[in-house]
């Protein structure tokens, strides 16, 4: 990644309202970032692998971090994780799961398939805001990504 360039985050989220929440929080964050939003698992895979109209990396840069919902149309989140982590090029890409599900099986599946972190969306404005701030602080301010 180019020094000083904004951190590219791929948000995979089928619920437009939730995407808006993430977008609002990250936009307000002091570290420069660029949020790219896709609405289903298939689109996420296409984007990451540079397929079906996402081939142009100038226009669709490779993300530094993926924020992934699990319950997605067409291809679900765990399958996205599996395919990314099985790919030599993409397997170093950190993926943070952000989902409403606090089910144990989902957590186990996510971590088993290479999730870097598992965050549950809180049903509370303050907490959700705090979570996203902490997330931004951690991943955008402190975390270091490979070039």
């Amino acid at each position, binding site marked *: 990644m180019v020094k000083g360039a904004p951190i590219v985050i791929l948000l995979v989220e*089928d*619920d*437009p*309202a*939730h995407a*808006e*929440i993430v977008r*609002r929080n990250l936009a307000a964050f002091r570290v420069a970032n660029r949020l790219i939003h896709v*609405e*289903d698992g*298939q689109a996420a895979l296409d984007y990451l692998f540079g397929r079906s109209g996402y081939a142009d990396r100038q226009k669709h840069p490779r993300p530094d971090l993926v924020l992934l919902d699990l*319950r997605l*149309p*067409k*291809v*679900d989140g765990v399958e996205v994780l599996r395919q990314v982590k099985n790919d030599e090029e993409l397997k170093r890409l950190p993926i943070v799961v952000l*989902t*409403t*599900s606090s*089910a144990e099986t989902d957590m186990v599946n996510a971590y088993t398939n290479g999730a870097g972190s598992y965050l549950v*969306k*809180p*049903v*509370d*404005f*303050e907490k*959700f*805001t705090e979570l996203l701030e902490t997330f931004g602080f951690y991943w955008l301010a402190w975390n270091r990504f490979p070039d």
Partner: protein
Amino acid sequence: MSRRTDGSRPSRSIPCVLGSAFMVLAAAIVAIGWLYNRNYQQHYRAAAESQLSVIADLKVADLANWRRERMGDASVLFNNDAFSTLVSHLDSTGDAGARKQLRQWLGQIQTAHQYDRILLLDAQGAPRMAVPDTPEPLPSTLASDACESLRSGKVSFSDFHRDTPEGPVRLSILVPIFDTHDARGPLGELVLQIDPGVYLYPFIQRWPTPSSSAETLLVRRDKDDVLFLNELRFKKDAALKLRFALKKGNDLPCVKAVSGQEGIVEGPDYRGIPVIAAVRAVPDSPWFLVARMDQAEVYAPVRRHWWLTVAMVGVLLVSTSFGLALFWRQKQARFYREKFQMAEAMRASEARYRRLFETAQNGILILDAGTGMVVDVNPFLVKLLGFSRQQFLGKKIWELGFAKDIIANQAGFAELQEKKYVRYEDMPLETADGRRIDVEFVSNVYEVNHHPVVQCNICDISERKMAKDALRRRSEELALANGELTRFAYTVSHDLKSPLVTIKTFLGYLEKDMAALDAQRVGNDLGYIRTAADRMSLLLGELLELSRVGRKMNVSSEASLQNVVKEALAMVAGHMAARGVKVEITAEPIWLYGDRPRLVEVFQNLLDNAAKFMGDQPSPRIEVGARTADGLTVLFVSDNGMGIDPRHQSKLFGLFEKLDPRSEGTGLGLALVRRVVEVHGGRIWVESEGPGKGTTFRFTLARTQRKST
């Protein structure tokens, strides 16, 4: 059940053993009897011999004594001065006093010593005096004997003799009388005559114990003969008359005695009857004494004893044989009793097992292992398979055909036999009327009377299997339902939580935006909240709807496919018309059976779905019909719309799953369709070759029939 196969052998061998035992016992008894008798005989003979010897010894001693006494009598008078003086006085003076005195003296001797007669002869042998004075003439031989005695000048004994051939037997002692003062020659001769009949004969003949044949004989040698001296018990007038020649081979006891034998001898007596005798020589005499007794008398008790022994042996033999016979009889009786009891036990056992066989609620087939022929079949199997008993019996198992999956032919049977034990948990059998039933088949090979038989136990497991299948299906259904429930709970919690998160978060934003008086953002926030609330309401409504499927059923009825589809079409007519979709329904008479409003819902959803995903198809078309596959009527709703990527087909029927997040609806439609189909005992799946290739939904419903009305 143990069996004695050599049932008649014990009864045959026992008589042999008993016979041998009897022979041994009999031989022992006879031998003991014989030995005992011999011992008794010897003992008795010894006693008899000893009796004879004692008597002989006693008599010999008495005889010798008697002779000595007689010679003593003579010696008192021989060389007796007083006597000689008296005799000489008698000679010279004829003194009457002397005569009287002499007569008195001799008379005393005669009476005291039982002499028959005492004679006084003169020196010439003429009689001068006789006491008692009988007129009996003087025997002629006496004179010569007297002369001989006078010549020798010694006392002599004149042995048994008869003075005349028919005269009495006498013994005499001759005493020469000499004058003791001058040796002028003899004065005379004194003759002491003894009549043996008075003392000697009775003494000889006396026997100390009662006896029917015993007697004592006195004999002497007379030239080459044996001469009997006394009167005999069994022969009159034998004294000095009966004689036997002393020659070889004449083994009369008296002959042996005279020949010098002593002790116990055997031989015939004078009557020719065998006797046992004790023989002795009488000392200082020519006499021999024979104490004899008939062998018959000696052995009479022995013979009696012998008979007693024989009788005892006989009794013993008889009782032994009786005992053995009794033993054999008892043994025989016990053997037959045991045999009878065994037979009874066998009969009872046979009845028990027969009853078991007849009443068993399992099929039992007994086969001859050698030939594969059916030997017996129980009523249960007859009933189970529907063949008659006669159809079974005498047939080879593979000829019957019902068990062709187990024993197709002789080779199969041989294999069954070789394995000894075969168990098939689930095998099909064919009954007489062609039905197939499922059975558990167990075969065992065992021996009956050294002949191998195969027993097949056939247990009808059709019901068990059906129950098992039902149970498996039920448990699969339960697992499915359980999985579905889990998924349902998960989905519900996730999908209901999602709008809630939206609502609460945007309420927070709303507060901030209102404080900042940012009207545009407030509008946006309210929009998100409204959408989320609407979605939540929709989800809850649809969940309720879904939960009703299968729980609240309408009364099942039969309806034609065409009618159901037409009803569904009426409900989605708006969409169809808006997109210009053409719907073709098969004319084939197909009858559906079930909850009609639900079936209408199925078609409504599928038609709506097809219309929704027509994509940019210029001439959209939907076809509804039925095909038959694997004996099942498969209904289908096919379109020529945008199709479905095969990768996404698995998620299609999931609850609240949407392939296109921007499409209308919550994603409940196909989940509902699947639920209705499943509640109607069917299955639904989707076929699409991919995007742009159209989509076909196929499903089955139980009790769908293709038939004309």
